[in-house]
């Protein structure tokens, strides 16, 4: 098969997206100047290009979902500069090298209520003339050093620098997207999209190395570049970035700077199927009910074909063997989301905010103390602490936080940090995974939640969360944590357009790790909650939830407990789940920001949880994170 040709610039900020294409079997990278990239794509000399967004306008290119080069605050490499501030300018020289930046400069100044004259001029001359009532657009290295390199300022008359990333963000509360992968219509297969996502995942993982290599080529300190790549530039194209991109294109069109554009996306749903051996539904159900191990073919058949009542009966039979005393446990715990700032921009998340956003937060000690004290007052014994991947928070921040929690509230269990967050901390702090976990444990971490698993199949992960850790990485954290004696839960969030084989693969991968470590205490699944996110659900129903939940009880023969997800499904469906495989009712909800941001609003206190358990015919019992039964506090 001939390779696709992809054009991209060799700029530093593009490298995390392109580095992983070296040696790709599908895509050949062609390095070129920005204007050449656009021209080659236009002429059909390449199939796709890392395209500045202004070049999308009026074209029918297909954008690769999930990936972009953008910023949600200062970008450092696109600035307006002058001797005086922008409101003193009557003329602005526009660096001719980048159309997107030219348009951005005009849109931003317009947003600021300013209307200087715009004159195209190469950057060198523009900067030279940016004195008095004149300003200049500066991009790339020159801009970078205007900000970073106070000691080597080649233009001493420039005293005012307006970072256009920050200015855009302040004007719109949205991130700015500078470039995306764009392809000629119809050429990209879902596998190609997956390949680009894979490359990005690889590139983002080696940002430190990219920074070091760049410093060798171009001079400067690796740390300066590393910070730029990890903290300034964002590589996700999530709902906020998309909103930012659309806002940019529509404002530019309204101002007559670009033709109107409707964004189109490349198809990212991979459809491949292995040949499945013939299995009988009855046999598979019976095996599951009897606790015999199901293989992938049997599990997929059940997932696709078994009626809900039959799966429910089999799972119920299994639950009766595993938990014969009719006790249904629950915990009183509080879910605290310490920050909503996140860099992964997953398409299914309604909770995250870019760093510069008006609603972005990092929880302070005072508020956390209040939340913990309220939890203790309600009989709570655990805090479930999770957050976004905040680019500025290193391991010391977490260590301090955990030590403080443990010192202030010795009875509280810290159930904290999904595998994704642990990777992120290791990356930000440049530490090996094992050491990261050891340090977190030493500072008070008791157990880890199984969040962020979504669907543990890279075909799906690359599509819905291209910047999240891979399946192997997620499982590696869990194995490492289990080896250190930590216990964790495991989750599955499905209904994001995945197929049966992906869900089954997820369960099998978990089962494999559990055989090895025995460290999973419980499994919880739920369907993707679609409101306020840009994914449209394929199957978001309660029916699908009950089926997959029951299937999980059958496939995960080595995971002791199954939690019913009343938070997402409501108490009634969760009660049905107790009769179809579950033996645990999760947690009393004091707070759950992530799910409720996506429009789910179920709430219950302990009395209501116990009423639901009792009415469904079971005996309620409080537990701790290790699923040991504990007394009900007064």
């Amino acid at each position, binding site marked *: 098969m001939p390779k696709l040709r992809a054009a991209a610039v060799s700029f530093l900020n593009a490298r995390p997206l392109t580095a992983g294409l070296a040696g790709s079997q599908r895509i050949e990278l062609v390095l070129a100047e920005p204007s050449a990239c656009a021209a080659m794509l236009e002429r059909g000399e390449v199939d796709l290009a890392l395209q500045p967004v202004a070049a999308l306008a009026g074209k029918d290119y297909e954008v690769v*979902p*999930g990936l972009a080069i953008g910023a949600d605050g200062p970008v450092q490499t696109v600035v307006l500069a002058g001797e005086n501030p922008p409101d003193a300018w009557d003329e602005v020289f526009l660096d001719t090298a980048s159309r997107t930046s030219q348009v951005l400069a005009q849109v931003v100044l317009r947003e600021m209520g300013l209307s200087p004259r715009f004159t195209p001029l190469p950057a060198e001359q523009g900067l030279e003339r940016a004195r008095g009532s004149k300003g200049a657009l500066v991009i790339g290295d020159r801009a970078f050093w205007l900000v970073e390199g106070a000691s080597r300022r080649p233009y001493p008359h420039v005293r005012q620098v307006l970072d256009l990333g920050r200015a855009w963000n302040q004007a719109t509360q949205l991130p700015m997207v500078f470039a995306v992968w764009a392809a000629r219509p119809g050429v990209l297969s879902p596998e190609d999209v997956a390949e680009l996502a894979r490359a990005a995942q690889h590139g983002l993982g080696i940002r430190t190395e990219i920074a070091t290599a760049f410093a060798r080529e171009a001079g400067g300190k690796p740390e300066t570049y590393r910070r730029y790549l990890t903290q300034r530039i964002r590589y996700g194209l999530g709902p906020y970035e998309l909103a930012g991109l659309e806002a940019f294109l529509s404002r530019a069109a309204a101002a007559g700077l670009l033709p109107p554009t409707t*964004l189109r*996306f*490349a*198809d*990212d*749903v991979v459809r491949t199927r292995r040949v499945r051996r013939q299995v009988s539904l*009855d046999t598979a*159900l*019976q095996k599951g*009910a009897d606790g015999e191990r199901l293989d992938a073919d049997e599990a997929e058949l059940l997932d696709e074909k078994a*009626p*809900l*009542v*039959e799966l*429910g*009966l*089999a799972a*119920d*039979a299994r639950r009766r063997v595993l938990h014969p005393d009719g006790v249904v446990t629950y915990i009183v715990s509080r879910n605290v989301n310490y920050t909503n700032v996140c860099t992964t921009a997953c*398409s299914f998340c309604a909770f995250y905010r870019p760093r510069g956003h008006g609603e972005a937060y990092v929880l302070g000690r005072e508020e956390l103390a209040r939340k913990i004290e309220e939890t203790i007052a309600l009989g709570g014994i655990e805090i479930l602490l999770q957050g976004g991947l905040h680019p500025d928070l290193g391991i010391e921040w977490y260590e301090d936080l955990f030590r403080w929690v443990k010192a202030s509230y010795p009875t509280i269990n810290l159930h904290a940090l999904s595998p994704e967050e642990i990777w992120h901390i290791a990356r930000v702090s440049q530490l090996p995974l094992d050491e990261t976990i050891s340090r977190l444990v030493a500072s008070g971490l008791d157990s880890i939640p199984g969040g962020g698993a979504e669907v543990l199949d890279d075909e799906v992960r690359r599509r819905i969360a291209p910047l999240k850790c891979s399946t192997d990485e997620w499982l590696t954290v869990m194995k490492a944590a289990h080896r250190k004696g930590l216990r964790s839960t495991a989750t599955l969030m499905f209904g994001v*357009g995945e197929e049966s084989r992906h869900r089954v693969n997820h369960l099998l991968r978990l089962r494999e790790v559990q055989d090895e470590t025995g460290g999973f205490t419980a499994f919880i699944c739920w369907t993707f909650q679609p409101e306020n996110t*840009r*994914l*449209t659900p*394929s*199957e*978001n*129903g*309660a*029916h*699908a939830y*009950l089926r997959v939940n029951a299937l999980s009880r059958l496939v995960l023969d080595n995971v002791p407990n199954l939690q019913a997800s009343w938070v997402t*499904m*409501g*108490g*009634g*469906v*969760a*009660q*049905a789940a107790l*009769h*179809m495989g579950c033996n645990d009712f999760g947690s009393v909800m004091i707070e759950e920001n992530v799910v409720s941001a996506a429009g789910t*609003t179920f709430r219950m206190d302990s009395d209501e949880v116990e*009423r*639901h358990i009792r*009415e*469904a*015919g079971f005996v309620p019992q409080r537990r701790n994170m290790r699923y040991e039964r504990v007394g009900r506090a007064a």
Partner: protein
Amino acid sequence: MLSKLAHRALERDGLGPIRDKVMEGRRLTEEEALRLFETRDLAAIAALANHVREARHGDLAFYNRNAHLNPTNVCVATCKFCSFARPDDRPASQGYTMSLDQAVEQVLGKRSLGITEVHIVSGLHPDLPWEYYLELVRRIRRAWPELHIKAYTAVELHFFAQKFGKSHEQVLRELQEAGLTTIPGGGAEIFAPRVRRKICDDKATAEEWLEVHRAAHRLGIKSNATMLYGHVERLDERIDHMARLRRLQDETGGFQVFIPLAFHPEHNMIGKAFEKPTGYDSLRTYAVARLFLDNFDHLKAYWVSLGERLAQVSLSFGVDDLDGTVLEERIYHMAGATTPQALSEPQLHRLIRQAGRVPAERDSLYHVLRVHGAPGTPERLPATA
């Protein structure tokens, strides 16, 4: 055919004899219904109810395109479970009464939406004349001849008979002549006198309610039957309620569908003392009703009260009919229902398909108008748009 797993579960719980009767098409006794209510083996009774449901209707799940019209909420009755009724139509009491023109206009305004039925239920207004009710039906019928008019619960019809000095039959006949085609099943609540004394002691009794439906059936007017559960009633009183319906159905065959309605506790007089029945209670009630009411063709889940998720799940617990698009529902929403005000047809289709069923649009007499596609057709996921 019932699966091995189902047989095993039913036998484990001592439900073998009940299963045998169901499989042989023999009628369950009230004691057996109580046994089913109390088993606590939800998966097993779901399997049995689902078996009956599929034997009757296969994979079809029915719905219709309908709109509700509640011409007034002013009501002389003081039912303790009601959040809708108001003592008068002064703005201070949040009461309202539509003029005939307004009411008719509200229905005719739905023309472009392609509804096939209007469902008319009101309060028991102290002052409106008989002509108002007749004329409302007549004018809708005249303006929109093919629309099904399902109007006035037995409680209202009984109130009309008393207030205007007519027999049930007379009331019904005049309405039928004006254009009424079926009557809704509301106002049944729970038939047991003990319960009616507590929650609705000043409206039609069980006997009067049943008498109105008997009269309707005699005139060839089909009707529905409801049961409001999850408040002060005991399980044996639910069963008694269903048993009375089953007896009348044996006699007339005029009931089309049984509709259990979960009590909603907000903004009414007894709500504070009672918690909303849990979903478990709803699901077992559907299953028992499907098994006990062997002479009812259809069992309907009212998604407005149940929520869309449980309504979807109920399609595996004996339910074959979902209330329709239900434009402009007021009664449950004033009792705190948080469900949407209406479901579009594509939304209903998706809800049904994702339960592994096939959406079938029906008319008010349960004739299938259109079957929508094969089951399990996946809804295409748009590429990240």
